[in-house]
């Protein structure tokens, strides 16, 4: 019996090894990924670029939400009404390559955001402990990161940004002090939105 099964197992193993090699070697670049986090970053395969349908448009009132922040307090979008513009930065998942090199770039842009009287609110569907560890590995961020973990993805869903697999799109939503959406951009999940898009969004808040 063993001899009869051996060739089939070998072929299956060969197939699996070949596929495993392809899968392990695929995925995004590590350029920009913090050194301390590289070994811990999950290398996801290429994903469907966009997998949801926006439920908001430019000029709409931004759906309000109240979410726990990694640093402890609960933050509501309406907290900023009349005080600050907001850029919501939805990223799909902690500990993945593109997400891990998107927000650290915003760390050197604080004065640009200040000049546009804008705060960033980073949002993912990961839970607080996961986000805490991830932020530590990234070396910290100057803006709050909020957890849309439970009810799972409710905020992302209100904007039409919840993907079929329970992660969110990679999206930027610019909201003015009146709480109206002035600019939005949903990027291919596999790609980091170029800074030009961020600047374009900020510009709409001060035009």
């Amino acid at each position, binding site marked *: 019996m063993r001899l009869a099964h051996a060739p089939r197992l070998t072929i299956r193993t060969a197939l699996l090894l070949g596929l495993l090699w*392809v899968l392990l070697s695929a995925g995004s670049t*590590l350029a920009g990924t913090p050194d301390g986090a590289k070994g811990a970053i999950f290398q996801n395969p290429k994903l469907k670029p966009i997998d949801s349908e926006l439920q908001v448009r430019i000029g709409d009132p931004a759906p309000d939400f109240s979410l726990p922040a990694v640093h402890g307090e609960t933050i509501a979008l309406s907290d900023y009404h009349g005080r600050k513009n907001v850029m919501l930065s939805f990223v799909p998942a902690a500990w993945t390559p593109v997400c891990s090199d998107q927000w650290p770039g915003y760390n050197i842009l604080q004065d640009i955001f200040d000049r546009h009287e804008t705060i960033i609110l980073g949002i993912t569907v990961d839970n607080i402990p996961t986000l805490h560890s991830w932020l530590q590995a990234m070396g910290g961020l100057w803006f709050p990161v909020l957890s849309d973990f439970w009810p799972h993805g409710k905020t992302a869903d209100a904007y039409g940004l919840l993907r079929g697999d329970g992660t969110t799109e990679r999206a930027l939503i610019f909201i003015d002090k009146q709480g109206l959406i002035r600019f939005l951009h949903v990027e291919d999940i596999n790609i980091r939105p170029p*800074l030009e898009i961020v*600047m374009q969004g900020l510009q709409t808040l001060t035009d």
Partner: protein
Amino acid sequence: MRRLAPLLFTPLFTLALILTGHAQNEPFSVGDHLPAFSMTAPESSTHRSYLGLSAEASQFTLADMDAPAVLIQIFSMYCPICQREAPEVNALYAALQREGLADMIKILGLGAGNSDLEVQVFQERYDIPFPLVSDPDYVLHKTFGGVGTPYFVLVQPSGSAENGHVVRLSHLGAFDSVEDFLKEMLTAKH
């Protein structure tokens, strides 16, 4: 059937290697030759002059540079290590000037996955004196094996146009001290 397994595995393995040819994370080894690549010439006349490029050049290669040795830094505006190390790399540039080595070793930064604006922001934020080139689609980054950032490679012309530039020093990650890294470069340079 038993003979079929290696026959099946070999093409799959080969296919995998082809598909992932540029996805490796390995830095160059000393003695390797850089593959040929061209870059967009910087707009700044100061940087063009530093690189030895004419005012008309829109693209350039390492062979066009007027330099016996070039330290290429692969960086990203989004990389926190690169952000933290930017003042140190500036100090290395200043040390080359101070030691009278400015014409012997030139520094060139390649912004992996960075657009023109991202490179410009990084350059202005850290007041970087040497030229930085954008690489929005990771084309140059793939040429360098898709390494993590920062990555430093010191290269010199091999003496033959076909063989291009040869690697004298390859350093992945931040360097520990400006003085030690300068010594390392001078030891590596022929």
